[in-house]
């Protein structure tokens, strides 16, 4: 009897050890977003033809997958309420792949575009701009910025003069 129980005990411990021993774990490291433009508190010109200057660097320890930009109103501190007449609340949601056939497992990708265009009839006010990024394993990181949509903003391409 004693031996049977002792064997049970040992087997259980061994089983536990073998499983604990396998360190072969898949990627749990999140990608890194380095957002260069826009920055916290930026004023975005409504109706600008140039669009918002978006510039970011994405990096990951293994392989980047995709990124997404989302802009939505934050008129009363998240508590978006009631319909407004005339103007339309600006909403933007778009995602892009960070890999392609030439580079199926990229570790560093720089992005620069002007695809976020705010139409003339957009409601001015406080907005959130969120940037999400995923790697191929499904790890996700994100950033949240407070931006202001205004008719008064600079109507240039957002680039510094020396560019």
């Amino acid at each position, binding site marked *: 009897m004693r031996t049977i129980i002792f064997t049970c005990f040992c087997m259980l*411990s061994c089983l536990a050890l073998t*499983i604990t021993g396998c360190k072969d774990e898949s990627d749990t490291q999140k990608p890194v977003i380095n957002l260069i433009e826009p920055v916290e508190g930026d004023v975005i010109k409504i109706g600008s033809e140039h669009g918002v200057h978006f510039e970011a660097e994405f990096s990951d320890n293994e392989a980047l997958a*995709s990124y997404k930009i989302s802009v939505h109103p934050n008129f009363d501190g998240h508590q978006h309420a009631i319909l407004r007449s005339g103007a339309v609340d600006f909403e933007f949601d778009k995602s892009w792949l960070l890999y392609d056939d030439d580079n199926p497992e990229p570790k560093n990708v720089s992005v620069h575009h002007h695809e976020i265009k705010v139409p003339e009839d957009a409601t001015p006010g406080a907005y959130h701009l969120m940037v999400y990024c995923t790697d191929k394993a499904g790890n996700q990181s994100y950033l949240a910025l407070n931006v202001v949509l205004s008719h008064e903003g600079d109507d240039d391409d957002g680039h510094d003069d020396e560019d």
Partner: protein
Amino acid sequence: MYFRYITVIMVFAHLQSLFAEKQDTSSVTILKEVTVMGSYGRDIDREITLPVAVADKKFLTEHFRGNIMQTLEYVGGVRSMDIGSGFSKPMIRGMGFNRIAVVENGIKHEGQQWGSDHGLEIDAFAVDRVVIRKGPSSLLFGSDAMGGVIEIQTPKTPLENLFYGEVSILGKSVNETFAESVMMGLKRGVYNVKFRFTSQDYGDYKIPADTVVYLTQRMTVDNRKLKNTAGLERDASILMEYEKGRHSGNITISNTFQKSGFFTGAHGVPDATRLRDDGDNRNIDLPYSTVNHLKITAQRQLKNDNFAITWNLGYQNNRRKELSIFHTHYGNQAAPTENPDLELYFSLVTLDMAMKSEWLPCDRLKHSFGWDVQGQDNNIAGYSFLLPEFKRFSAGVFYLASFKMTDKLTFDGGLRVNYGKIKLSGYSDIYLSDYLYRRGYPDSVTDEYRWRGYPVERAFSDLAASFGLIWQANDYGLLKVNLGRSFRMPGANELSSNGVHHSAFRHEQGTPVLDSEKGWQADVAYTFQNDGIGLSLSPFFNLFENYIYLKPTGLWSLLPHAGQIYLYTGARAVFTGAEAELNIDFTKKMTYHFAGEYVYTHNLDENTPMSFSPPASIRNSLILRHGNIRLSAELQSIATQNRVSKNEDPTKGTNLIHLSATLITALARVSLSVYNLTDNAYYNHLSFYRKAQIPEPGRNVQLLINIPLKRKMK
């Protein structure tokens, strides 16, 4: 506010003078009670093949924190998943939420335990004895008891005719808690009636940090106090017992009400302006949640020399409300005219019925047979949506045999057949479909997203089994081995949810075709008990062929405020680890206690750890007793948790020092404790606020006064 304090002090003064004359008898009785319950703990350990721990009244009082789960954290393998300083829910060996059953007076406590911001609705003051079963308990307790059971038992009835009672007062500095609880009971002849009222009020809690980071935004915390984390609790309960010859029975009615603010800095999208000090650290502002749990249970027992039969009945209604200033993510929803700030409302009604019989045809054999039926009805309201309305039914039959082969060796084995059915109503969000239509998405996309809760109707047939042995090798050593097959029916959220979880801030999607969770669980427990030395070791190994978790899909959600979609998926998973405890009485006055625990989790399909893996932890404590004074010092070491699942942050470890001094006299028991003496800033890997990088409460000075009352009656 002051009025209530004065009333309590007056009640005090009055009761003290009443019972001053009975000093001698009460002190003797207290000592007697302690010994009785200690041996009860050892008895139950020899009867159940699973590792069990018994927290008796003495243990519960010595570790009292005003919150039952924070008290039970002192039991090896048990962890408390906290939401701020007031709410907590249980975790045993890395398993929480719907995988742990809390049973009170034979009835499973049914709240909203699937939710990440849910806390257990149980009056900590009213708990007199807890039996903790670590490991697979589906056989006896059905679905949801896969990871273990916290069994709150009714206390032993006094033997003699007695008027008894207790007044307890608790104060905590960290959130300026003031709590009082009054219990009064009368035992007369075959009847025993006990009443308890508890009230707790607490303010915003202090953290040892000046800033928190929420959704990547660093925000200042004014005066190091987390704004709007204040709360209150009001509980009342009554127990009526009857015992005459072979018959006994009881009825309990309890109502628990909790109201607690949500930290404004971790609710919704971050906004620093909402975090400014409003000058009042005790107000509960929007957003906040309230829970009211009404529970009525009845038990009846018939006992013969070799036969016992027990019936249990239970009715529960759990009503949870979350209130927040009306807001919409889609811009097309008008505020409701009635209760415009009611964001979410769940009303869950649960009915339970159970029967259990035991038959001992001879000294060596015991047959246990039982069945149980449970029905649930969940109704919802509010301008937002999280969980659909559902109806759930489950029924099970079990048989367990226990065979005492020799005086030292007992085997037991059993089987349970379980059937469950769930019908989810489904919920189509017209505001969301309109929003998606206006954004120009095709109908196919709108159709896919508008179902915030899928209409699902499923039935599950499950089997639970267990085989175990208890070997009392000699007077000192006890070895237990248990192998169990357990199951859990998928929850409503796992089958049907489809949308952004407002507090987790991610798009969580249910899978209507999910199978029940199933696994094999092996446990060994060894205890050695000799004069002055106690040792216990309990390793475990669980292998699940279907363990439900939220898998990141890598697909972007179209919903505002959402990143990728997380899908409820079944995976093969391993949970293994061990608890070790050592107790050495150096002298009659000095005891050293060591407790350590480790859990290793692994998702075999993803090849990553599981989320919410509790970090390894060790407690070293020294207890000194001299006359009626008890002093204790404890070093709690929590290891760094680097074993995290995808999209979970590692949590750094810490060392905490806790000190406590207790004076026990016939009149009262006064205990002064300091927790986190050095005011360390650290995170709890299992806390709801961990994601928001909000540290745990800082240094906490706690005063607990218990005044027992006792008067013999003729």
